């Protein structure tokens, strides 16, 4: 327990430092972005029919939410706000706190990412075991190559292909946002059904994209474990196949849990493509929008939260690992 607590403390310290560093980086990157959002907004209003002067005034009001002061002042304000979980106000959301906007979007990223990851994880590890057992046969080859291919193909290619097939050629699945508004939100069949229906394509894309990685990781993990002496030893002791299988599975899955947590974190960042393709209003899309709208605070916040989630996932992965692996639990170094 002491070991875990110590690890936790260490991770927290490092995690916090990382987040501060990332926040600093993102702050300065974001501030150095060219392009004048004020001018852009004025032009936009003019094109919508407002006359130039009122467009300017309207824009001034709007951009009053932009932080003021020297760069250094802005930076210290930003950092001290960060400590209070205050990421500033979003310009495009008329001064709504960035955290609130992010929270709203995060829901819609977490849902499909979680579902997709878990789905692909389950299927991936099962197929990975197969691929490992049949590794010298045709089936193993096919599984491995298809795994590599899926792993290799970028998400947007999968997303576009799925979209082209299921939303364009045979339009049986929606690709327009997360849920149909007509259903009263809550725990009712209509709402949940609509939620599920809308989630099919994005989740499938996540799942397919991640599945390849799982199958490869599981395969190599199982192959390693199969080569471990204790498996042969268990067989030679006449252990039941089911028990031997459990030995293999548990030892093989263990390293994958770390990757699982990591990939959850990474997927949050990679969600941009899928959210763009399927109009899923999550963090990725929010980041993309905030960039085109030059909503500095929102952009910085979205970037930060995506990064922070990865850092947190890292920490959780490590802690989880130390809970399930007795070697780590007792403080012994285990090489990944």
């Amino acid at each position, binding site marked *: 327990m002491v070991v875990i607590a*110590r*690890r936790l403390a260490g991770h927290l310290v*490092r995690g916090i430092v990382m987040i501060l560093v990332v926040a600093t980086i993102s702050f300065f990157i974001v501030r150095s972005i060219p392009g004048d959002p004020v001018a852009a907004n004025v032009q936009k209003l003019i094109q919508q029919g407002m006359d130039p002067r009122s467009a300017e005034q309207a824009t001034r009001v709007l951009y009053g939410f932009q932080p003021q002061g020297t760069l250094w002042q802005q930076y210290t304000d930003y950092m001290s706000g960060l400590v209070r979980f205050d990421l500033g106000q979003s310009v495009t959301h008329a001064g709504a706190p960035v955290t609130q906007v992010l929270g709203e979007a995060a829901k819609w990223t977490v849902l499909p990412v979680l579902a997709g990851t878990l789905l692909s994880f389950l299927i991936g590890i099962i197929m990975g075991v197969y691929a490992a057992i049949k590794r010298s046969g045709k089936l193993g080859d096919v599984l491995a190559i298809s795994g590599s291919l899926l792993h290799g193909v970028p998400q947007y290619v999968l997303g576009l292909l799925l979209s082209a097939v299921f939303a364009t050629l045979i339009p049986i699945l929606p690709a327009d946002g997360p849920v149909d508004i007509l259903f009263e939100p809550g725990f009712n069949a209509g709402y949940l059904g609509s939620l599920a229906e809308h989630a099919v394509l994005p989740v499938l894309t996540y799942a397919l994209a991640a599945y390849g990685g799982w199958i490869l990781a599981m395969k190599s993990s199982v192959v390693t474990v199969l080569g471990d002496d204790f498996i042969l030893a268990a067989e030679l002791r006449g252990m039941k196949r089911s028990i031997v299988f459990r030995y293999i599975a548990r030892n093989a899955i263990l390293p994958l849990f770390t990757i699982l947590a990591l990939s959850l974190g990474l997927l949050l960042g990679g969600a941009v493509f899928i959210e763009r393709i399927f109009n899923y209003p999550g963090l990725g899309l929010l980041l993309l929008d905030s960039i085109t709208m030059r909503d500095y605070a929102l952009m910085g916040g979205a970037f930060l939260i995506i990064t922070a989630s990865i850092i947190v996932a890292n920490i959780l992965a490590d802690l989880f690992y130390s809970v399930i692996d007795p070697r780590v639990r007792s403080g012994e170094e285990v090489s990944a």
Partner: protein
Amino acid sequence: MITGTGVVKTFKQRGKVLGAREVRALRGVDFTIPKGGAASFIGESGCGKTTLGRIIAGLESYDEGEILIDGQSMSALKPKQRQPHFRKIQMIHQDPYSALNPTRTIHQTLYAPLSLRARQTGRSRSWIDERAAEVLSLVGLDPGTVLARYPHQLSGGMRQRVVIARALTVDPEMLVADEAVSMIDVSLRLGILALLKDLRERLGVSVLFITHDVATARYIGDDGELYVIYRGQVVERGAVDTVIADPVHPYTQSLLSAIPVLHGLEQPGEQPVTPLESLNESQSDEGCLFARRCPFRGERCTTERPLLRLGEGIPQEHACFYPERRSVIARPMSEV
């Protein structure tokens, strides 16, 4: 000649974040290896033999103490200046496979140090080739067949000879052979031992032999000295045959008792010594390090640390308050 006095080495295992574990690998070791002489370090696994060997070969730093090579103090020199001195001491690794670069032919392996030497002494390319052939012949290999090969095309014994040949390219004054034969087939072992002995006699190279197998130590040269090391401390030191025949330290005695008896050929020793419990690294450092395992321990042993000394009419140095000769080793049937 190389001498060491009070060499101390402590490994700090860096903990994850907080706290570090210390391993006291060497606790003040003195040794002298004369030019052309031989010395053997024996001891249980983890007692610090390899560490000491590496320190002597200049591959590891030490925390305290002094090492003199031909009278020159190493601590007084800058790392760069030490190098030529340490080059006179070459290490022969335990695993002859990993000691050779699998991607380079034997010729390439030998060529690199030779060309360095040729450059330093202004000799021609042809000298390099002559010398490469020469060192190979010295270790009993046929240059014609061996030079063009890759390590994996050679047997373990041949590889080990190549390793020795490579060490010879820099005209070393001393070879440090760390478990140099333990990974070599039984039938070939003696060949390597004989080779080392031969090199000693013919080239005047001194040999430091590190092993846990006392019998092999004897084959390097019966005129050599045997250092029995226990938990980073020399507990007995003397001429090889003296120590083998008349060990006085209980630890030496238990080491020798542990040597299997060739029942058809030998008669077991009369007073075998078996330690009371097995080695436990974390036990206290107070008193004699061996006290807890020693069947003969007295009162003093738990409170006071015995130092290596001569005395009590015993020809070898020993670190025991109650030294006593015991006949532990097996005797050939013919002698009985």
